[in-house]
């Protein structure tokens, strides 16, 4: 008979050597860098055209997102329906996403269709027309979506807490109101397109099953464009954090839950504390076994889930705690969050708990290195944040070696309630 009370022996995940498959890098004739990862068994490819055309470049609110979205809604040769059809006929997906610094056009397709799809992307990047009618539909549908979202406490809370941490004028803290959408004009969008796409800065990332002739294809399609290699100088947006620390907002009188957000400003990935704080954050609220989850969900049952995280921003960032808790237990949940901060400040993390977190994190990274898209995501993060090529290995090393004393010191430095904005939206 086996003794079910005894756990089988394990290999500590921290004893694994992790390797991030290196990328290949080449430039097109116009110096646009192309990073590629060739891996995976499926005959699929992911191509991302990353432009420095995000929110932080805009003079008018909402214009970066509108320009990015409407790239696929008309060229001089094809209307929106035809552009969509040219991707969808081949079962391919062409998505647009707009972030703070960057705006991305991505293509996911079976590799064998790539030659038919690149010309469509080229058309979008050189010949988009931004028809008036398409902009009207975009405004109307965006306003309607916004209206629905504004009724969700979690959406409202997310906007407000960002505005406290960064200031409403900062691209990370600003948010859209219906008037911003009303004020968009075709002319302004075309100007933004001209400056930040036609004559913008671009990086291309390709991952998956890369065809042998990809470089020639990309060069033929995109090597003559007027876009240039990124300069690595980002606009210098200054934060203006809110003066008040504590907020309670009623969004819906019939609410049965409160959307709780706590946040404090935090330096970016280049700061020497960053990699160690990532470990501390895991202990605090970064995974299912974290302090916050164990206490506030698994012991008290106040919430379905509670998480802490460092926002994924390039210039500066913030350390956040987020949960939805019953209206009657929201204040109690906040007290418990502060108690958990205090425990991390007052008591050293035990060896067992620290080993668990190290193993969990390393095991997680090991799992994330599984597949070309995930590998590329890791590199993209390093490249777009302008980090050292060793960043990945340094982070892994930090997870393996950071000490309980260091974590306690960091808790004392950062996890101070008076440094946190505190918000509940009911």
């Amino acid at each position, binding site marked *: *008979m*086996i003794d*079910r*009370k005894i*756990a*089988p022996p*394990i*290999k*500590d*995940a921290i004893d*694994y050597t992790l390797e991030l498959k290196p990328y290949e890098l080449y430039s097109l004739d116009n110096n646009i860098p192309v990073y590629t990862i060739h891996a995976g*068994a*499926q*005959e*699929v490819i992911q191509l991302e055209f990353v432009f420095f055309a995000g929110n932080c470049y805009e003079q008018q609110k909402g214009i970066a997102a509108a320009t990015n979205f409407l790239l696929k809604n008309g060229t001089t040769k094809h209307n929106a*329906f035809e*552009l*969509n*059809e040219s991707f*969808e*006929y*081949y*079962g391919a997906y062409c998505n647009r996403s707009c972030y703070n610094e960057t705006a991305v056009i991505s293509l*996911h397709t*079976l590799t*064998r269709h790539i030659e038919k799809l690149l010309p469509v992307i080229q058309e979008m990047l050189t010949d988009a027309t931004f028809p008036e009618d398409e902009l009207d*539909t975009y405004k*109307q*549908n965006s306003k*309607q*979506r916004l*209206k*629905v979202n504004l*009724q*969700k*406490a979690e959406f409202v809370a997310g906007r407000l807490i960002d505005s406290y941490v960064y200031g409403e004028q900062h691209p990370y803290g600003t948010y859209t109101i219906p008037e911003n959408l009303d004020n968009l004009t075709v002319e302004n969008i075309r100007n933004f397109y001209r400056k930040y796409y036609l004559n913008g800065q671009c990086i291309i990332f390709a991952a998956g099953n890369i065809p042998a002739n990809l470089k020639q294809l990309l060069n033929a399609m995109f090597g003559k464009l007027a876009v240039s290699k990124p300069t690595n100088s980002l606009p210098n947006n200054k934060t203006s954090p809110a003066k008040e620390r504590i907020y309670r907002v009623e969004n*819906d009188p019939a*609410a*049965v*839950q409160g959307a709780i957000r706590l946040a404090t400003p935090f330096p970016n990935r280049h700061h020497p504390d960053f990699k160690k704080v990532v470990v501390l954050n895991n202990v605090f609220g970064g*995974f*299912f*076994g974290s302090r916050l989850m164990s206490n506030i*969900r*698994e012991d008290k*049952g106040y*919430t*379905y889930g509670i998480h802490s995280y460092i926002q994924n921003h390039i210039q500066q960032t913030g350390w956040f705690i987020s949960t*939805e*808790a*019953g209206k009657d237990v929201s204040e109690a949940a906040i007290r418990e969050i502060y108690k958990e901060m205090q425990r991390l400040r007052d008591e050293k993390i035990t060896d067992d708990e620290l080993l*668990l977190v190290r*193993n*969990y994190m390393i*095991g*997680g990274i*090991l*799992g994330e290195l*599984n*597949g070309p898209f995930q590998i590329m995501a890791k590199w993209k993060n390093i490249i777009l944040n302008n980090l050292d090529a060793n960043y990945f290995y340094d982070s892994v090393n930090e997870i393996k070696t950071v000490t309980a004393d260091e974590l306690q010191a960091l808790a004392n430095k950062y996890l101070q309630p008076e440094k946190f904005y505190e918000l509940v939206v009911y």
Partner: protein
Amino acid sequence: MPTEASAQLKAFSYLCPMIKFEKFTLNNGLRVLVHEDKSTPMAVVNVLYDVGARDEHPEKTGFAHLFEHLMFGGSKNIPVYDEPLQVAGGENNAYTTNDLTNYYCQLPAENIETAFWLESDRMLSLAFSKKSLEVQRKVVSEEFKEHYINKPYGDVWHKLRALVYTTHPYKWMTIGASLKHIEDAELQDVKDFFFKHYTPSNAILVVAGNVETANIKLLAEKWFGSIPAGEKYNRNLPEEPKQTAPRFAEVKANVPLDALYKAWHIYPRTDPRYYIADLITDIMSGGGSSRLFQSLVKEKKLFSSIDCYHLGSTDAGIITIDGKLVKGVDIREADKAVEAEIIKLKRDGISAAELEKVKNKTESAMAFEDMSVMNRAQSIAMYELLGDADLINSELSKYQSVTAEQILEEARIIFDENNCSTMYYLSDNSQQN
């Protein structure tokens, strides 16, 4: 057109490598399937239990899902599930649907025995902790509030299911028909449910990743072999009678926009016509060049969003069209416009190019899905539950063989007005513009 079909099949076998696995059954009835993939350092252990919300008592709904939470509250010999797995570098989660409950974890392959130890102990017996029940009742109540009460349109599926199904247990949501059912759950219910449904013969174990089949056989026998077989649960659910007249419901709620929901009964997952129904939803919606989006959002500007989909349920499911109206549009006008698209489909059918498009989409979606070993493991379990894991390798050819004629024929049957339920979900806050 046999030549065309065989050409497609050939292309398929070239592009989508067969997903290979080996299957064996333990003496207690536990089915075990092993899928080796040496390209990853990880292993996936997926345990699927053949029990979902459809197996619940109508007065105790939401229980299958609440029970899923309790599966993490300690088992007979192991006080907590999560910690030892995390120490071994693993992570896990689970989900419950109206049809099934699925538990999955991923960990470094060298530590796979930890997953066997944990999964086998909770299949052997739970600890039935009172504290765990008390806490998880609250956690699930908060989950209920977060997703279904404290959110605009959160109760749509509660109301729509009740309209579409008169008899079959699909008439309630997985989360449950009411908060009260969850709050009232007792420890005896938990015990009864466990011994009725969580038996080896009611489970499917899939192990995938960097593993050796021979070793998995030994581990499966070692950890799961001695679990008593228990009594076999035989499902005997009331069948939904054929709908014979259109149904209609009108709801007023505190939402900013009017919304239209229409649903039609379709076929069980294993019915050959399932694939036809599935492709019909792709023709109607799912992209910027799909029919409903182009006609109703872009050209007629009646909706700000509209989708057509089905839930892939095991028993006979439904096709749903669900759209939010542009402010100011009369919902009856919007409803008529949806009907007009349906009439067009029933009258003219689809073009060869449209058919090719949705087949290409299916092929592409499958290739992306199969990239992750976790997805492959879950698919294998799902197909085994449907009757045969080998179905995973014939799925695409079934889609490839659907013809435009079949689509026309099935569209006419499915979109019969007597098979339709319509729900107007109207905004009652008239002060907004």
